[in-house]
């Protein structure tokens, strides 16, 4: 029993990162109607940024977020100006098709670039308190992963406030709902796209940082994270960042439960089953509008 509870707890802690990874993808898809399948590679780049920031500056791993977030924001601006800004000029149907092509191309390029620059080795960030564990009622909670979950939640909360209160946050939500109506109220829709893409990339960077601290990074983790994020976006639906985070937690727990019930190899299967079932039963997702 306590073994199962321990596994579910670890699933929950991992699920927070799924939620954070999905939030950026959900924001970009919801606002730009562009499916960025290179989102996992952006997470991977964020992980390497954190790795080198910590290795070069010797600061606390979690403090590296203070640098990785703005760096990823800049990366997002660059990618929008260089690539995705052209995709959003097409009508919505063409956008999804073109973004898939560009996204896969970008994913392959970034993967190859990462292997060239940093080799295919797995890397992780060693923290002085890496082995610390909190014992609560017979459960062992790894401190690093608990802090990661708390930070992921804080970032999602911050994003929620940003979209709810900030003038441009409201403009981003308006653009997501109806971009033509947004134009009629004087919103520069292209700028809303740019901001949403940059924020989405910054979230990917943050997710990559936490993944590298709690787990590890290598050039090939991108596809797996894109897949997880995609499952969570379908599971949770568009329109609510808190809902996306909860969706991530649910996926983490569901994976852990199925690994416990059917054995480790079935861990990945349950996510795909959830993906299909949600698409059939509730296509707009659990919390979608």
């Amino acid at each position, binding site marked *: 029993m306590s073994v199962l509870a321990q596994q579910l707890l670890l699933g929950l802690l991992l699920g927070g990162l799924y939620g954070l990874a999905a939030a950026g993808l959900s924001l970009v898809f919801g606002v730009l109607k562009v499916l960025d399948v290179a989102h996992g590679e952006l997470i991977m780049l964020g992980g390497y940024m954190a790795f080198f920031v910590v290795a070069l500056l010797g600061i606390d791993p979690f403090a590296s977020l203070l640098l990785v977030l703005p760096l990823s924001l800049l990366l997002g601006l660059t990618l929008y100006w260089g690539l995705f800004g052209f995709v959003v000029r097409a009508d919505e149907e063409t956008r999804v098709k073109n973004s898939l092509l560009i996204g896969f191309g970008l994913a392959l390029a970034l993967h190859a670039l990462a292997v060239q620059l940093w080799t295919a080795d797995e890397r992780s960030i060693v923290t002085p308190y890496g082995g610390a564990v909190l014992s609560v009622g017979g459960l062992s909670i790894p401190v690093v992963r608990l802090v990661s979950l708390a930070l992921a939640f804080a970032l999602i909360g911050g994003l929620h406030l940003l979209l709810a209160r900030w*003038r441009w946050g*409201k*403009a981003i*939500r*308006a653009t997501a*709902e*109806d971009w*033509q*109506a*947004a*134009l*009629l*109220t*004087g*919103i*520069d*829709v292209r700028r809303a796209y740019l901001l949403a893409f940059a924020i989405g990339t910054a979230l990917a960077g943050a997710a990559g940082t936490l993944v590298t601290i709690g787990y590890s990074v290598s050039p090939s983790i991108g596809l797996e994270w894109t897949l997880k994020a995609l499952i969570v976006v379908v599971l949770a639906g568009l*329109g609510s960042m808190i809902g996306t985070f909860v969706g991530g937690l649910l996926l983490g727990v569901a994976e852990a439960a199925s690994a416990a019930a059917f054995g480790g190899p079935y861990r990945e299967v349950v996510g795909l089953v959830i993906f299909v079932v949600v698409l059939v039963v509730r296509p707009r997702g659990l919390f979608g*509008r």
Partner: protein
Amino acid sequence: MLEIRDLDAAYGDIRVLSGVTLSVGAGEIVALLGPNGAGKSTLLNAVAGLLRPRAGSIRFDGHDLAAVSPHLIVEHGLALVPEGRRLFGGMTVEDNLELGAFAPRARATQAAGLERVFALFPDLRDRRRQLVRALSGGQQQMVAVGRALMTNPRLLMLDEPSLGIAPRLVRSIMESLAEINRSGVAVFLVEQNVQAALGLAHRGYVLESGRVARHGSAAELLGDPHVRRAYLGPLAVRE
């Protein structure tokens, strides 16, 4: 104020407007009438910048609107209440209205604009924190007109504001348009409800198959046998 000359517009290969010339003067209420598919909405969308015309010119106070980015057209004092209202349903009444004042010129007068909208539609004041999608059709139309007013327009264009709204509310919407007009805003109105539209308007144009088929004062159009037969029905002819 608004001068449209020889306007051609098309969706893909389908030509919707051919050589449309019309104008709206400062302080006027002008109705644009015509059957479904005549191109009325297309005309308004072209003026608002949602659709690029094939040929012809659209000038507003002498500015060529073809050279203006769509999101900057409201800055010239031109607002559209689109067909079907197109509100941000997941947001509150207040958020919708505030987004109407997003552009710099309107933002400077946002507080006064909000008071103006609430004075015009007192119902909205109590519902300012409600989600728009929870409101009735009539209330949503008030929000839609309110959002456009928040842009502080000199010309307000409306695409079928009476669509899907209870008849009692249609009259109150028309009355509020008259009131908006009295405050110095020109109104350009596309409407299927010809009786209501010509009751309000000073002048009107009839658009058929993408061309201006008739134009004149509201009284002239109401007395025109073709308009009566085509748009007011047999009852009106017998009257």
